[in-house]
């Protein structure tokens, strides 16, 4: 169950004020009824361009453009778009986090497969390649559309590109339910709490998910700013228990992008470890950029 979250970082000088963010949200809401068809068509075309065949794109009619605060950050959420396919459908969401503090705004695109079946692990590299390509192209398109729709409202500020943040998270479904928490921990961690490089499976999955050309075991030596971090997440088991499960992330820079790629074993009832922990990690990193 891979989830890709991709954000373009934008700095404003001077900083945005809340009234401007409300204005952008109102402009997006006002244009939405007529613009949503253009939005769906653009996603379909961009999906086709990156090699994702789609029979159509459906916009969730139960949702509307929403303005909310995520912590202290004003957010404008667009309704979910579902890329309909013969195989697994893909969920795509765009949102704009318009920062009114001394941090960058983020234009986010989140992509993940729909349904409980997930993907075969053999296809992980190809699926992530497609998701990343689609996330980047949709994110860039959405950013340009926001500028077209609400650029005048932001005219008093100078906006400069401040890089990219990508958080890719892979939840590897564990079908057997008789595992103990210790089994999951020992798969992921070495005795010192670092990544378990003695686990070939972990190394292979991480190498593929991060598209590494270097040995995963030596990546932090070759890239001194890279580091490993783990994030816990509470997930619900089939028997109703809440259990804490960890995901191990490799965090590094690639050109102007900060990339975090995480792998975790997922024995949750809904198979939602990846989407849940990805959101948590996204918030933690985004709130510091």
């Amino acid at each position, binding site marked *: 169950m891979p989830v890709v979250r991709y954000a373009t970082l934008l*700095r404003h000088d001077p900083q945005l004020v809340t009234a401007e963010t409300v204005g952008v949200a109102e402009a997006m809401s006002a244009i939405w009824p007529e613009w949503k068809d253009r939005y769906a068509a653009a996603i379909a075309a961009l999906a086709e361009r990156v090699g994702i065949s789609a029979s159509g794109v459906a916009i969730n009619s139960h949702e509307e453009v929403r303005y*909310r*605060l*995520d*912590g*202290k950050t004003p957010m404008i959420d667009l309704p979910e778009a579902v890329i309909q396919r013969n195989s697994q459908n893909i969920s795509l969401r765009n949102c704009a986090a318009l920062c009114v503090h*001394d*941090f960058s705004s983020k234009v986010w695109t989140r992509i993940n497969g729909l349904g409980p079946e997930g993907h075969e692990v053999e296809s992980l590299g190809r699926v992530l390649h497609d998701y990343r390509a689609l996330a980047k192209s949709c994110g860039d398109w959405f950013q340009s559309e926001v500028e077209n729709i609400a650029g005048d409202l932001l005219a008093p500020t100078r906006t400069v590109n401040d*890089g990219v943040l990508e958080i890719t998270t892979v939840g590897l479904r564990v079908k057997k339910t008789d595992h103990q*928490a210790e089994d999951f921990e020992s798969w992921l961690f070495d005795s*010192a*709490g*670092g*990544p378990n490089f003695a686990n070939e499976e972990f190394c292979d999955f991480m190498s593929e998910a991060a598209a590494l050309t270097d040995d995963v075991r030596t990546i932090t030596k070759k890239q001194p*700013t*890279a*580091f*490993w*971090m*783990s*994030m*816990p*997440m*509470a*997930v*619900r088991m089939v*028997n*109703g*228990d*809440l*259990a*804490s499960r960890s995901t191990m*992330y490799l*965090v*590094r*820079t690639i*050109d*102007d*992008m*900060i990339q975090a790629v995480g792998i975790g074993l997922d024995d949750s*009832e*809904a198979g939602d470890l990846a989407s*849940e922990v990805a959101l*948590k*990690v996204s*918030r*933690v*990193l985004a*709130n*510091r*950029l």
Partner: protein
Amino acid sequence: MTERSTEETPQQKLARIRAEFAAHTPVNPFSEMVETICGVTFVNETTDIHRKRRSDKVKIAFVSMPPVALDDVVEHSSLHPGCRGATCPAENGAGTTAPEGVDPRALKRVLASFKPATAERMFNEFREALEAAVERFHPDVICFNELGLPAEDFPLSRAIDLAWDMSDKHNMLVIAGSAHDSRTLYNTGYVFRPGGPRPGQGFHKSISARAVGELISAPASRRVAAVYFAGLRIAMMICIDVADYASIASVVKVGDGVDVLLVPCYTPKIEDMNSIAKVTSNALPGIVALVNANDPDGVAKPCLVASFGSSKALTPALKLPSGVSISILDIDLAEFQQTRLSMTNDSNRSDVAFLFGRRDMPSVS
């Protein structure tokens, strides 16, 4: 959070973030093992339609019942602590004697029991309180104090029927503490929910309040029950369990999945327990509510709510002639989420970090 420069390179940004994540507050060694001691378990399925958010707010009514006198105390035990060896006269002798070398005090079981007239009064007050809370406030959740559910030596079936009927009819959750059930020997609370099982779902106190002479048998599998209802993940525990580190730490450890902790109580020491509730509400972060009996002398507060590290006594919104006090808490879900996210983004929470570890921040290796 560390300061950032306006012209940082991606490498500088990452170095700054790494330094912040790596600045660990020491964590006490007990916090790691709690999942092996106690767990949190949801009682409703993921398919339960009542999990969904209904509106922008969730209203919780806290019902504090008048105190009840323990009319009778009945001893129940499969073992006779005072007997030794084959001389035990009870139960035909076989299997009823205390093993040699075992402290007899560890074998004693004493249950609270109420006379029929007391149970009748409790039932009438319970019905009146339930109906008044529904009619006046239309709550999503009603939580009664410990001993709030009428009982003789186990809860009255008509009280259980009433609680379930009201829950089903009004689409609300009813949570009620009870007494020591003579069938299980446990101090048992119940949750009744629309579409849920008619007898309710029981949850048990895991520790004994030794200082007040409480002698119970704790369930072997210690679990904090939780229910996902109206957009809130609500955990429930009984009274002194809120003062038990393993119980609280097990909830905090899965704090991503718990918003509110409701604690039916029956105690004069609610202020002491409230200091723990405050810490817990900070650590979750979320809301912890202590629902006490309504002390007629007004010494022990009927209801204390700790919210994100701060605490307040709720002013009763309704008092009934029978001595019932009803307090109301409205939770604005957007505001709740906003506060929670703001707190989890704060890296300077060393107090809760030492107690429980940080579940909202990554660990850097």
